[in-house]
């Protein structure tokens, strides 16, 4: 229990784990186990920091001790023939413990966001890309194109942090033109300088990038319209992109939610490569929320493979399609699901008849009560940790903000692994 006598205190430079931007400039007020964002907050931070601090483990819906719940989770894991460690919304140490456990018990690893993230991964593995990071955009970008969405609903402070600054390393009075391609300008954000919208259905963005590539290469096209817009719109856009000194095209791959969207990502990235023949231009693939890039990074560095990897044969077997969570559960190929979700109580396990062990934020509610529920602490709130930002370059330290009796994901999984050996 948190000590009720703890006086309220203000904590500066807090890192926020509730989206892939991992802003590290928040000021929060902490009083007992209550946390309130004072400065540099956003809707996601308010919800995330405001969530419950206590919870009790359950086995088949009945209250249980942590030790009993851990032992039951280990028992289920021992008897499972093909366990799936899913969700995986955790910090670096949680991901390290997950990978170790998967190797130990022959499990499959797959993150809750990996179906969307795969669209970027496939592009990178097939043809690659040219990308940039947040501080480069903040200082250099003179043109930002936002493809397929508004960014802000998923990454609320993106414009605050990267576009709205007046001062840059290279001078005052910054003007960065912003163009929304196939998405709406976000409400509630006042952009400086020029901003505009090119209407285009997100499923037709691939066609748009193909046309733009042809125009950038100086080819003339017979068509009078493409991707739902007149050709002169694309010609103007191509000219504008080529005139940029440091152009950036950002996309949140979750917004590209249609079959074979990896081809749209690839067309976008190949267009950026083309632009770099004469000027500088870069992509910004936005992700990192729910620890997706954190888990991917840890698995990659330890084993050489990312999400969608099975350890069932005593060595890594990577196949992002075969080992996708939805497919494994739909076909009954997994007979036990561990669902790890330490950032948001809303990210509950998929509805399944497969026995499920949930390591989740307290307050999580279920359509079907899991076999075991273990409430876990949130990194950056209940315990210290690390999270990779959207660019996969910066790994920020997360602090413990309040006293907490909730165990970390790493601690629970380490205990489960230890219990496996006690059979």
């Amino acid at each position, binding site marked *: 229990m948190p000590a009720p006598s703890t006086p309220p205190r203000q904590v500066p*430079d807090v*890192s926020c784990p509730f989206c892939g931007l991992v802003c*590290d*400039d928040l000021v929060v007020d902490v009083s007992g186990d209550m946390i309130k964002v004072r400065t540099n907050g956003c809707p996601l931070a308010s919800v995330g920091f405001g969530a419950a601090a206590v919870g009790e483990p359950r086995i088949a819906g009945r209250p249980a001790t942590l030790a009993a719940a851990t032992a039951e989770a280990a028992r289920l894991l021992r008897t499972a023939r093909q366990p799936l460690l899913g969700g995986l919304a955790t910090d670096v*140490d949680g991901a390290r413990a997950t990978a*170790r456990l998967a*190797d130990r018990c022959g499990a499959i690893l797959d993150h809750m966001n990996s179906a969307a993230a795969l669209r970027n*991964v496939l592009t*990178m*593995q*097939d*043809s*690659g*890309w*040219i*990308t*940039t*990071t*947040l*501080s*480069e955009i*903040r*200082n*250099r970008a003179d043109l930002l194109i936002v493809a397929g969405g508004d960014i802000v609903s998923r990454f609320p402070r993106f414009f605050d*942090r*990267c576009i709205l600054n007046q*001062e*840059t*390393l*290279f001078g005052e009075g910054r003007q960065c033109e912003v163009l929304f391609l196939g998405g709406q300008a976000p409400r509630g954000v006042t952009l400086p300088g020029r901003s505009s919208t090119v209407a285009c259905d997100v499923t037709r963005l691939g066609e748009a990038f193909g046309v733009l590539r042809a125009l950038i290469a100086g080819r003339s096209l017979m068509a009078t319209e493409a991707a739902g817009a007149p050709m002169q719109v694309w010609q103007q856009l191509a000219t504008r992109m080529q005139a940029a*000194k*440091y152009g950036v095209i950002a996309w949140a791959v979750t917004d590209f939610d249609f079959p074979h969207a990896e081809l749209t990502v690839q067309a976008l990235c190949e267009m950026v*490569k083309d632009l*770099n023949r004469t*000027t*500088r231009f*870069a992509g910004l693939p936005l992700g990192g929320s729910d620890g997706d890039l954190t888990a*991917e*990074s*840890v698995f*990659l*560095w*330890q*084993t*050489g*493979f*990312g999400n969608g990897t099975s*350890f069932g044969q*005593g*060595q*890594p077997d*990577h196949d992002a399609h075969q080992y996708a969570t939805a497919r494994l559960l739909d076909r009954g190929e997994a007979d036990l699901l561990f669902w790890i979700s330490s950032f948001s109580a809303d990210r509950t396990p998929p509805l399944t008849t497969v026995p499920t062990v949930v390591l989740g934020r307290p307050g999580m509610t279920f359509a079907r009560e899991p076999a075991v529920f273990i409430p876990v602490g949130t990194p950056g709130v209940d315990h210290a940790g*690390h999270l990779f930002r959207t*660019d*996969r*370059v*910066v*790994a*920020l*330290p997360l602090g413990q903000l309040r006293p907490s009796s909730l165990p970390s994901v790493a601690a629970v999984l380490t205990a489960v692994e230890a219990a496996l050996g006690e059979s």
Partner: protein
Amino acid sequence: MLLKLTGGKLYDPANGIDGVVRDLYIRDGRMVAPPAADERIDREYDLSGRIVMAGAIDMHTHIGGGKLNIARQMLPEDHRADLLRRTDLTRSSSGHAAPGTLATGYRYAEMGYTACFEPAVLPVNARQAHMEMGDTPMVDKGGYVMLGSDDFLLRLMAAGEDQKLINDYVAWTLVATRCIGVKVVNPGGISAFKFNQRMLDLDEKHQFYGVTPRDILRVLSRAVHELGVPHPLHVHSSNLGLPGNVESTLGTIRASEGLPIHLTHIQFHSYGTEGDRKFSSAAARIAEAINGTPNASCDVGQILFGQTVTASGDAMAQHRNSGLANPKKFVVMDIECDAGCGVLPFKYRDKNFVNALQWAIGLEIFLLASDPWRVFLTTDHPNGAPFTTYPHLIRLLMDRTFRNDRLAQLNVDAQALTTLGSIDREYTLNEIAILTRAAPAKLLGISDIGHLAPGAVADITVYRDHADRERMFTSPEYVFKDGEVIVRDGRIVKVTWGRYHTVQPAYDRGIEKRLRDYYERFQTIRADHLRISAEEMDVFGHGAAVLTHPCR
């Protein structure tokens, strides 16, 4: 616990021992003098007929950090062909060009290496580099922090700030990022590329800051020297891979103005423009310059044929070379007003003129460089070849017949343009021990590794003497780490986590306020969040000790 290693033939050049049969004693993880006659030996290893050296040290190997993880992600096809099965002791992983950290540690140890230094730690990515090195078992590790295209330094220089302030910044960066040395990559060039400059020659001005690579080399080598950091400025010169880059490389050696300088993967910077194809070996000129410049050292960055991946901070050069990627894919990144990176898979082919000549150029440099204390055995893993090719490279150096047989199989035009076939030199075991043990430890300023005198850490590799040196160096009979056997007959028998090597030069803490202001105004993280704490290092490294080596 007192161990005796009996009857091995020692190659311990740091202590002037060249192939002498001598007993060694280990107590509590360190080498000790022969004990009194009545002391009980707890365990004795009969090493008669064996070759004994200190554990090997790789002073330039890309084992951890963002660009390596990009390389790993790009190459599932390469990993699939080289899977490591789980054992009771070791975890599963995968290897070859960009191995997982687990495979990296296991395989280095299996080859008799006990320390590895990651040469390109970006300040903003240092935490990831340490996480990855922390998850690299078996070996000691350390990093060189990359400066020279960071806007903070370039602004200081453009404003004509005092060297003292630059020294404070360099020292702060070393301490914050827990590194042991400073590296500069294509000085100023990574930044210039962000301004759409595609080349930056040694005396060419950065278009925004007006400083030249030579200016950057001067202030950084001075900073490293004045701070007393033992390892000299580690320099990846301008113009990597370009025909004719020998001129800027020779200029870079001179630009140090008598201060210590280390030129890394110099093979990639030793190209002339002679011949029909305007690409030729300048190895002789480079070797002559190194031989005649006592303050200069180099590692070779030998290429060996086959599939690999090139991962470099030099975004400018990597973008320039992106058309050569094989398979055809590449990643280039601009990073945080701090640095950049570029990753492209590459397949060196022996029938390809340029690749064959690159192979010959590297070997020419090895064989023409007269002082083995100033030339280091590297492939710039994975850029020239994966580190697992080292035993093959050692055989090429030690066995002239083997080398010339291999040369005869290469692209014939390349054969005509190399003097390699006429070079008789064969490296001795003692020289190999200098290149891979004694000299790296000395250059890094680490006094208790790389040799076997009393007081040294008992990191020891024991080989069966075999005429085929490739076979001999592939699979040592024993590897001791901190006095314990971790590898037996090329198989891991104990998993350990090594230790970290760092330096912590002193600095005026006034720089911290300036950095805080700068980060708050221009960057997207807080300056204080770059700083890696002792607690974090402990978590990353599985409890591995973090050692701080003295500055001069």
